[in-house]
């Protein structure tokens, strides 16, 4: 049996975490949560993750700093930035650190989760299609 795909959601809004957890679990995901940057980085190291959903405004280390640190060891892990509003400056900054996509909190999360699923599946497919290393 295929293992459930695991997503880490990082947000300091506990109620938002509850909602997104329900949505992701209903879509067949295993969900792990973190409420600050340090906890997020610990969990990125500890678990085998298929994607991270990362809020920008976090207490202490902000989301972009967390993304930068994740990218030091995990170039291919899909990381989606969660934001309350769609500031282009933020998008550009996050793109510089190779964010995989954005989730605007007030948008339709059902649709966003479908987009994330497509992205993860594409990333999986791409992995599978990589040519084997030369013997």
């Amino acid at each position, binding site marked *: 049996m295929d293992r459930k795909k695991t997503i880490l959601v990082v947000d300091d*809004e506990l*109620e*938002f975490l509850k*909602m*997104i957890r*329900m*949505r992701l679990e*209903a879509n067949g995901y295993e969900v792990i949560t973190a409420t600050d940057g340090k906890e997020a980085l610990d969990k990125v190291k500890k678990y085998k993750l298929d994607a991270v959903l990362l809020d920008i*405004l976090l207490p202490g280390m902000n989301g972009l700093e967390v993304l930068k640190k994740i990218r030091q060891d995990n170039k291919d892990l899909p990381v989606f930035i969660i934001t*309350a*509003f769609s500031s*282009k400056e933020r998008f550009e900054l996050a793109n510089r650190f190779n964010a995989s996509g954005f989730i605007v*909190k*007030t948008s*339709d*999360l*059902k649709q966003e989760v479908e987009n994330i699923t497509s992205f993860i599946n594409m990333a999986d497919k791409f992995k599978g299609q990589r040519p084997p290393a030369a013997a």
Partner: protein
Amino acid sequence: MARKRNSKDHAAAAASRLNEQVEQLKDDFISVVSHELRTPLSIAKEGINLILDGIPGPINAEQARVLKSVKINIDRLVRIINNLLDISKIEAGKLEIRKRLADVADLARQAASSYEAKAVEKKVSLKMDLPAEHFLANVDPDMVIQVITNLLDNAVKFTKEGQIKVSMRECGKHIECSVADTGMGISKEDMPKLFEKFQRFGRANGSSERGMGLGLSIAKRIVEMHGGRISAESEPGRGTKVTFTLPKKV
């Protein structure tokens, strides 16, 4: 004399510092309000959506009807907050336009298709008279979509029967886009104030629809920031047509 000039320089420097602080406060205000209002709204919206999708368990038809009404109003609140923040950014000179080459016909198609469900719900027909070929212009695509969305929002809001039509044509060095409806129309007296902030004509005319009266004002500012023009013609009881232009790619 030298002392006098010195004190004038000090006053000017202090005024400039104060000005910078006020600008910074405005920025912080927009950012904080944006985050603090949208986060609880997003939680409320997703909570309703989860229940409507039956994820925590089944609900009956009457409960679904009530929740759909809550959802419509949360979406309305999100639009109001977005408009308020946009107008604040425009007035603070912080709304940046990032132009790139885009097919304006395709942008209109995207904006209009997001209103198909609403039109069906209101039993109004939504027609798109858009060119099959590319209408290219150097624009900020998100903002052009916002302009058309704001026009469609009004059209859907104030049209009880008949049709809404989005059309586009080339007109000399410009691309001309119109959103026409067969709605309640606007009186002659109200027309000069149409693109001003906080003008709510629907309310004055007894419509049950509510808004902040910011959509057209934002649309005008965005169109002008692109070097285009916006205008409207209307006949009370017959409908309204709002037309805007954007410079074509040369």
